[in-house]
Each structure stands twice: as structure tokens, then as C-alpha cells.
């Protein structure tokens, strides 16, 4: 009997422990208590971290609502996907460009918030669904071109402002290489290969070709000749950094900041912070993306720092209050300034630091169109990883442009059928 009692006691203890563990894993609180979770797509050394912490303290002091902040970059998307599958999303989280295409089923529409009237209409195409609903607060509006080290270009005899066609760009790369500097820095340890394809594709196709992509018909020849052939040409001519495979975003930032590379095809906001830490005097800016016909453009849309409120949040009122607080012009300006990025709200003006001159020259006049990131509008959700891998295989010489385009078509067809 003693053994039996011991067994029963042990089983009861185990059951109790299991219950306790289950309790630990439960997110949020049932009583609608004043505590919300806030997830950001951000690195630990981002200048924006201190700004968010300051704003959270201010919000808590004002409302009594506590905000539990967490941040990640490497696993952010995977974690959010797992949380979506479990319907256990953070109360407020960064939608990083995907508020409509990926997250809208899980987000509360924010149409009735007062700040929606101030959202830049240029974001409508990427941030509103077919019924006009908006699901995230765009504290960041990404407007990106090709990042340049202006000192390197000047030393190589390249007029950055005169690069309007891909032919001009190729000539500039040749001059930079002749000057002994790496023409393009890219990183196999990040998604920069995908950015490169996105940049080129955004203005590479006619409306009818774009419609074919939207209708689920991936044109292998068009992708190969209009997008990947440029990359293959740069690879063949040895224009990429020799450490491409093992390079990280920080390495890209370092090479651009120290004048070891001339161009980078990623949004400046993703490398600028590190670049200026390495060389505060770096003469970095951006130029519009060239095209075959000389029509320059920038690429952009919903930025990383855009925030939605989970539809199933048990603390929705508190979460909405927090988002409204972030949208207040003074607060939104602090965030945009720390990111060195445009704000998605028209009533917010941020100091863009070293990039201000580029913004003033290329964006402010409003004469150069901003194209949406190609994959977000014309390709099915989930294609991003395959875009990175296939472009990467061209940069490393593992695949020809045609083979890589074929690979991308396989993934396109699968995702389109889902």
C-alpha cells in the first residue's frame, strides 16, 4: 500500500508540475489586465532600442499599462509564424512589410484610429487590402535606392547622379574595379541577394508581364533576362566582394563605410547604423535604381517598423492605446529619426542624418517614382526565401541565370497553388 501511495503521490506531483508548466506557457491574461506584449524586428544594438524603451516608460507612466518588449531579427519571422499557427500572437508586433499579404487575417483593422488620416497615400498600394482596410501603423516608410560611398565613386571618376541606365551602372562598376575597390558588396549570410533581385525586378517588366506574374504565370525567360542576367554579368566580371559567402550585413556596412566597396543593393536603413559606428565620417548616400530605358526609380513601401494589433489579443484596448501613443507625431518622429528613415505618417518630420541629402535630392521633389517591392505585389507570399537562394546561386556561380529562374518557377508554382 505504501508503494501505491507513493505512486499516486508521484503521479499527482507530475500532473501538478505539468499544469504549472502549462500555466507558464499561456500568453496574456484573461482578466484584461494592463500589460501588453510588444515584439519588434530589431537587433539588440539598434539605435531605435533606446527610443522604444524611453517611449514605453513614458506610456506606462501616462496610462499605467505595462509593455513587455521583445526583439529579434534572425528568428523573428519564424517565431511569428509559429505564434500565428498557435493563434497566440503578441498584442502588438512588427509587420515588417507584410501587414496585408501575410498577417491581415490575424490583425485587427485600424481604419477608425485617428492617425490613419495621416498615413502617406503612397503606402496605400502596399498597406491597404482590396477593401481599403489598413492593418498597421507605418512608423517607417522605406524608400530605398542603391547605397553608395560617394568618396569612392568620386575617386574612381564616377558621377553618381549620371547613372540612369544599367549600362551606366555597368560602366561605373568597371571604373570602380579599375580603381582597385570592390564594386558591389553583398552578403551571403543575409537576405541581400533577395534585395538585389527585388531592386532590379521592380521596374524590369511591362504591365502585361506583371499581370502574368499576378495571374500565376511565372515567365522564366523574362526573369532570367530582365533580372538575373544583370547579376550573372556582375558575377562573371568579378564585381562582387570576394567574401560574399561568409559576409554578413555588418561586413557589408563595414566595407561601404571604410571605402572598400562602392555600391550595396539593400535599403540603407539596414546597414547605416553599423556603417556610421565603424566610420562616423563615412560619406554614404543613395542613388535611384537605374533601368534599361533610363527611367530611374526608388523602391519602397511599408517599413520594418510598422505595427499591427493582434485580432485575438485579450488586451486589445490597451494595445490600440499603445499604437495610438506611438503614432503621436513627436513619438513617431523619435522612432523615424533613430532609424534614419522616412515616416509613413505625413505629419511627422524626422532628421535623417547622413541620408538627408539623398532624400532631399531624390525623394522630396517627388519626380522619381517609388516602385513597390516586386515580390510583395506580384509574387506569392513565401517566395522571398527562394528569391534569396536562387539569386545567391547566381552570385556564387552555382547556377546560370536560366537555371536559377527555372528553380524560382518551381517554388512560384507551388506557392501559387497553396
Amino acid at each position: 500500500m505504501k508503494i501505491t501511495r507513493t505512486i499516486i503521490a508521484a503521479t499527482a506531483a507530475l500532473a501538478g508540475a505539468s499544469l504549472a508548466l502549462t500555466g507558464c506557457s499561456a500568453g496574456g491574461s484573461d482578466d484584461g489586465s494592463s500589460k501588453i506584449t510588444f515584439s519588434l524586428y530589431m537587433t539588440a544594438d539598434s539605435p531605435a532600442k533606446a527610443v522604444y524603451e524611453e517611449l514605453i516608460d513614458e506610456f506606462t507612466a501616462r496610462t499605467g499599462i505595462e509593455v513587455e518588449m521583445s526583439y529579434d531579427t534572425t528568428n523573428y519571422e519564424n517565431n511569428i509564424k509559429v505564434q500565428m499557427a498557435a493563434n497566440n500572437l503578441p498584442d502588438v508586433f512588427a509587420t515588417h512589410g507584410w501587414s496585408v499579404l501575410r498577417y491581415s487575417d490575424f490583425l485587427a483593422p485600424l481604419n477608425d484610429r485617428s492617425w490613419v488620416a495621416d498615413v502617406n497615400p503612397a503606402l496605400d498600394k502596399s498597406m491597404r487590402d482590396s477593401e481599403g482596410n489598413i492593418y498597421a501603423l507605418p512608423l517607417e516608410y522605406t524608400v530605398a535606392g542603391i547605397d553608395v560611398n560617394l568618396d569612392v565613386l568620386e575617386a574612381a571618376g564616377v558621377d553618381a547622379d549620371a547613372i540612369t541606365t544599367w549600362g551606366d551602372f555597368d560602366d561605373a562598376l568597371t571604373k570602380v574595379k579599375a580603381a582597385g575597390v570592390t564594386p558591389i558588396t553583398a552578403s551571403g549570410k543575409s537576405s541581400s541577394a533577395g534585395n538585389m533581385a527585388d531592386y532590379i525586378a521592380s521596374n524590369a517588366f511591362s504591365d502585361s508581364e506583371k499581370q502574368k506574374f499576378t495571374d500565376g504565370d511565372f515567365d522564366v525567360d523574362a526573369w532570367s533576362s530582365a533580372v538575373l542576367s544583370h547579376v550573372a554579368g556582375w558575377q562573371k566580371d568579378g564585381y562582387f566582394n570576394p567574401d560574399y559567402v561568409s559576409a554578413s550585413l555588418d561586413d557589408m556596412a563595414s566595407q561601404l563605410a571604410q571605402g572598400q566597396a562602392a555600391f550595396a543593393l539593400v535599403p540603407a536603413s539596414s546597414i547605416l547604423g553599423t556603417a556610421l559606428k565603424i566610420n562616423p565620417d563615412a560619406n554614404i548616400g543613395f542613388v535611384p535604381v537605374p533601368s534599361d530605358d533610363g527611367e530611374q526609380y526608388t523602391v519602397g513601401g511599408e517599413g520594418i517598423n510598422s505595427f499591427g494589433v493582434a485580432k485575438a489579443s485579450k488586451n486589445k484596448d490597451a494595445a490600440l492605446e499603445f499604437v495610438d501613443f506611438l503614432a503621436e507625431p513627436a513619438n513617431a518622429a523619435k522612432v523615424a529619426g533613430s532609424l534614419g528613415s522616412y515616416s509613413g505618417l505625413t505629419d511627422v518630420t524626422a532628421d535623417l542624418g547622413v541620408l538627408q541629402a539623398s532624400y532631399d535630392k531624390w525623394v522630396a521633389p517627388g519626380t522619381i517614382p517609388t516602385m513597390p517591392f516586386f515580390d510583395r505585389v506580384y509574387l506569392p507570399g513565401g517566395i522571398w526565401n527562394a528569391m534569396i537562394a536562387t539569386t545567391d546561386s547566381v552570385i556564387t556561380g552555382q547556377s546560370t541565370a536560366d537555371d536559377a529562374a527555372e528553380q524560382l518557377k518551381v517554388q512560384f508554382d507551388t506557392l501559387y497553388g497553396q
Partner: protein
Amino acid sequence: MSAPSSAAAALRTRRIWRESAVNLMYLPAVALFVVFIVIPVVQGVAIALTNWDGYSAQRSFVGLDNFARIFTDENFATALRNTFIFGVGSTLIQQVLGLLFAVLLDRKFRGRGFARAVIYLPVLVSPVVMGTMYYLVFRYHQGALNDILGVLGIAQVSWLSDVNVAVAVIVLINSVQFMGVSMLIYLSGLQGIPAEIKEAASLDGATGWRQFFAITVPQLTPAFAASVVLNLIGGLKLYDIIQVLTGGGPGYATNSLSTLIGRTYFGNQAAGYAAAQGIVLFLIIVVCTIALNWWFDRTRNRLEN
């Protein structure tokens, strides 16, 4: 009559209860096994029959389409080939080095315990840390190896750009990290060989290499079986080191099946196809394990007879 019979019945019930109560002892283990292994495997099979993207509420039944796709997927073929290279390559190197160190450290000498600890120490290091360490060795800029080449006046090399070198480096890191496991298994095997057998062999004139191959190696068959199976399973499931060192690139060239499954599930948002790949990996490991155990059992029986 009724009183004694009811007492006997009560006694019988108590005895049955006491005997069956022992089943409660393994109930928690069974419950954990069911919750964390059986249910996920069954769910994995169910997901493999759908086109689920991994997070949305919608999914459609697609039958065996995901399994059929595996046969035409070049990336899967590359990952499968790499998986066998990682598994078999690491296993071979670990057996050779593990046995070598086991034989060397089976002898009595000063500092033997310290040497054993040094060989075993990498097993305790997280594979992510191990991968990161070697990333810092093999990376192009500021990589330790290229810094040494720079000091010697030799041009820097982009080591990880070459797929063959990258695969070899991954095999090497995994082998170095886990050879301590093999060494430990072989050490226990060596210490289990009765001294009389070796003495008898010596008296019969079998010494040195002859004694090693004629006496030691056959006696180590159970240790070989345990070590090979453990290392092979570890090698076939290799994930962390690849993820940190190359991320599966360039392109898809250094993926193992495990990293490809992660990329397929999260990156490509194809949870159904990733589940099908996972089931194939599971079956490969099961078949390899059964085949190896069968072969080692047969070899041991042949040697014993």
C-alpha cells in the same frame, strides 16, 4: 464458507492491484512519449498530405503530391547526397579518431585523465558555438586562417565559397566535436576485454598489430555497433553547424535534409512539403539504423561462432 471466500477474493484483488500497480510506474514516461513523439509524428503525416503554409487556417488535402514532388526536387537530391556525406563521412572519421584515441588513452600514463577530458570536452560545447567558432576561422575577412595566410604573404582564400571545401569543413567540425563520444564507447569496450584473452594470444605469438586486428577489433564489435549507430544518426540529423557556418548556401549546395526542412517549412512557407521531407528523413534513419544493427549482429554472431 462465505467469509473465507470473500477474504480470499479481497486478497486476490489486492494482489492483482499490487501487481498491476507497477504499470503506473512507466505511465508518465508513456504519456510524455505519446505527447512529444507519437502525436507530433501522426500530425506530421497528416500535414504531409496537405498544402498547409505553416500558419494560416486554410489547408487543402493534396494526397501524396508532396511525396511525389520529392522525386523531382533537385534541392532535395542535393540535400540527400550531402546528408549521406555528413553522416557517413563524420561516422568514418569519428570511428578512426575515436578508436585511435581510445587505444592511446587506454594505456597508463601521467595526465591520462586530463587527455581524456580534453578529447571529450568538445562534446559538451553547443554545436552552434562550435559552428560560430569555425565560422570565425574560415570566414574571408578577419578569419583566423586567412589572417595566418596574410602573415605568410599568401593571398586570402574564400574557403566557404567552394561547395566541396564547405562540405568537408562541416564534416570535419562535426567529427572533431563528437569523436569524444566514440572514444568513450571504445574505451569502455577495450576495458571490457578480459586480460586472459590477450595473454593467451601473446603466448600464442599474436602481438602488436596482429593481436589488435585478431583479438581487439572482434571483441569491440558491440562497441563498434553502438558508436557507429549513434554517430550516424547524429550525422544524418546534422543541422546547427550547417545553419551557423553556411546557412545551407551557396544557393542550396550545403544543405542537409534537416536544414532543407527548416528552410522549406519557414522560408518557403511549405509546411506540407517540409513534413513530407521530414517523414522521408525519419524513414532513412530508421532503415539505416535497422540495417546497421542487423549487420553488426550478424558479424558478432559470425565472430562468436
